[in-house]
């Protein structure tokens, strides 16, 4: 893996992140709302009102009267240094604290989901391609189409109904701190359904394509063990588009766990982001989006690097 290529990708990530940060910050600023009223504990359901002078004092205390760009660079500096200040809604909590508390849940959910999706999707797609037209193939296709067509939140509720209510082997919901990994199993299964279905279909299509290529036929003609043909010659070639999808899916899963986190009462990054948007907790919302974007960019960088590991043609092309 050439060092200059990694460096180039890393350098490209910097302006991308800066652009994302600027966009996220400005969109937050443009959204209407009064964080000062929220910080004062007002809630539309409670019917409370605040003294106008008190609201103004709160806005000043929160620095909301400072120029936008000044606040942007302060915030960006804070993001880089890890000092993101306090939550607008809850000054007792720092933004970093909120992120660090929520991030493990989201990361476990995201990577757990992808692990399950890969462990289910690749073997199923592989079997489906190898036994094309057979029962396994039909079953795999039915499962993958059903998986793609079922809404995640509905599937989450069905899983909950079956495995937490009718047959209560998992909790109805709750945090990792309270229930350990048992809290994450049903959410992972719920979120994994879509990517698993996609990976199954991609693996099947990729394998069918590769298995009909001349080099596979040659490998077979040379008398190679069928397993070697399928795994070394077939799967390795079919993996390239699958890895691309995994990279994109990871980002998508991370940003899209909101519904499942809400159903299972998991306080991950998605739920934190949703609450922050809802309550106009600007710095928390902006930081959550930037964190998700950063993870997305880093994961895609890793995927790029992985291409070079898997596909020798890219290494050769780079050397030339």
């Amino acid at each position, binding site marked *: 893996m050439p060092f200059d290529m990694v460096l180039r990708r890393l350098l490209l990530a910097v302006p991308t992140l800066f652009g994302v940060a600027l966009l996220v910050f400005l969109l937050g600023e443009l*959204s*209407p*709302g*009064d*964080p000062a*009223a*929220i*910080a*004062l*504990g*007002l*809630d*539309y*359901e*409670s*019917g*409370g*009102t*605040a*003294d*106008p002078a*008190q*609201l103004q*004092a*709160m806005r000043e*205390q929160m620095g909301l009267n400072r120029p936008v760009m000044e606040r942007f660079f302060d915030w960006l500096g804070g993001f880089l240094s890890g000092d993101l200040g*306090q939550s607008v*809604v*809850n*000054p*007792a*909590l720092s933004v970093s604290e909120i992120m660090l*508390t929520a991030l493990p849940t989201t990361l476990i959910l995201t990577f757990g989901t992808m692990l399950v999706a890969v462990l289910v999707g690749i073997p199923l797609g592989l079997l489906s391609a190898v036994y094309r037209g057979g029962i396994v193939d039909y079953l795999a296709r039915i499962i993958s189409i059903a998986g793609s067509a079922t809404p995640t939140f509905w599937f989450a*509720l069905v899983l*909950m*109904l079956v495995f*937490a*209510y009718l047959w*209560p082997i998992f*909790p*109805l*919901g*709750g*945090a990792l*701190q*309270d229930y350990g990994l048992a809290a994450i199993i049903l959410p992972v299964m719920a979120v994994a359904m879509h990517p698993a279905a996609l990976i199954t279909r991609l693996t099947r299509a990729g394998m069918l394509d590769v298995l009909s290529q001349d080099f596979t036929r040659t490998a077979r003609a040379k008398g190679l063990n069928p397993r070697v043909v399928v795994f070394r010659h077939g799967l390795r070639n079919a993996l390239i588009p699958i890895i691309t999808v995994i990279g994109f899916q990871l980002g998508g899963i991370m940003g899209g766990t909101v519904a499942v986190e*809400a*159903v*299972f*009462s998991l*306080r991950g990054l998605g*739920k934190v982001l949703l*609450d922050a*948007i*809802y*309550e*106009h907790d600007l710095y928390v919302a902006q930081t959550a989006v930037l964190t998700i974007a950063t993870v997305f960019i880093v994961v895609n960088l890793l995927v790029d690097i992985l291409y070079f590991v898997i596909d020798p043609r890219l290494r050769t092309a780079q050397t030339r």
Partner: protein
Amino acid sequence: MRALVGSVATIAITAAVSTVAAPTGAVSQSPACEQYGGVIHTNAVARQTLDPAISVHPYYQMNWLYDPIIRLTQDLEYLPWLVEAMPEETADNVFAFQLRPGITFHDGTPLNAEAVKFAIDRIADGDVVSSYSGQWSTYLEEVAVTGDLSFEIHLSQDWPQFLWALATSTHVPSPTAVEEYGEAFGVEAAVGSGPFVLDVFRPRERLELSRNDNYFMEGIPCLDGVVSTHVTSGSVRSLSIQSDEMQVLNTFPEAQVPELVAFPDVTVAEGENSTLTTLLVDTTDPVLSDVRIRQAIQSGIDGQQIIDAVYNQTGGLVSGIFPAWHPGYLPMEDLSAIRPDLERAQALLREAGYGPDNPLTLNLVTAPGQAHADRGVLIQAQLAPLGIDIEVESIPNAAYLQRRNSRDFDLLLYQYDGSPSLSDYTWSLFGAGSNGNLTGYNQDGGVQNERAEELAVAIAAAEDPASVAAEIAEFQQVIMQDLPMIFVNYRNHRTAWRDEVMNFSTALLKGREDWYEVWLSE
């Protein structure tokens, strides 16, 4: 204000807590708990902090951890709580209090007059971000400590909501803990003298409490503990109580009612007419300052249809300026001004120069909740045939508050939680000097009615509703004619609990259930 010394206060507490066990300072309580113990799992967690200076929802969580100077029971009775008796007005706007002896905070430090002064000053001086600061800084002159357990509250002027403020915003935290934890107080620690001690708090996620064995009221709380978790999904909340994973559900949407009512082991009870739904009108707007327009809107709205369609029939129509549960409630004989009457609405609009040929376009701002948006859409549909085009804007909470507080709306759907004070629903909503007056009525540029202001002030200053019955009757007539806000209907709130939960009932006001004498039968 002298009369408040005994009028409302000499109530049920006398039987329950009048015998004081001298040595420990503990107050012996008639053992209400037939069976002690049990941990109840319920579903609501304060979204940000347990600091009593900051408003905490649901409210009963404050009473779990802290004690107020006086307490408002769920049946709307004021009881002396940390103090021996209800406040005594010793001079004009000076109220004397005597704390019960021997009360300690969860950290072992004594709850004395200095601690009470610390709690109130902290709010009034703005040392902490508090939605109570505005009212306390306006009315409080000082808290004077007159002894270890005695203090006086000096007010700068008559405060119609004084009892309400004492009951809702004087929950006393440990000064030692507040100083130790600083800004983190309320999240990392919440140390009061209340019936439960904090074990775990994760904002918006989980709250775990265990019984305070040294609680000054002997024999309570009955429960060993409470675990409260934040459950966003309505379906999951419903499953949780059906599966016995939770035993009590805090107020929840009407959509879940039929399913829970049908479930055999669960009781669902309503707190009737607890929140008033109104449309605030910007009376400073040239078009809406025309009373005919406001009256036409009022006559065009069918509150019952909204109760049926949005509240699943759990609500009530407005029949007086106060709701039926309020001590000041006086039913109006003639309600025609606030009942649907399309012909009247059309005639009024025509007179004002509007109608289907010349439609009146107004925006209607609502909060983001589904029931809020639904009400907005139904009102839009009801007013459309009259020639009033409503543009409904359902916006996020923060934006809603900003629009509401800056009067940036034509109409704004407002769900109002009142208190049992006479000033509520009267001066607080319509008084010129009230920051709860969001319509501009009797304020600069808004619709003026001197008589309404006089009546609102007179009603707010009274302590006994009977003494101002004539004023209330006249005031509600005036307001229903002037209509600085449109009266839509009342909405109920509700709680649900499993059969094994004993001695639990739904409070008259949302989120104000008493948990002192609740226990589990098994």
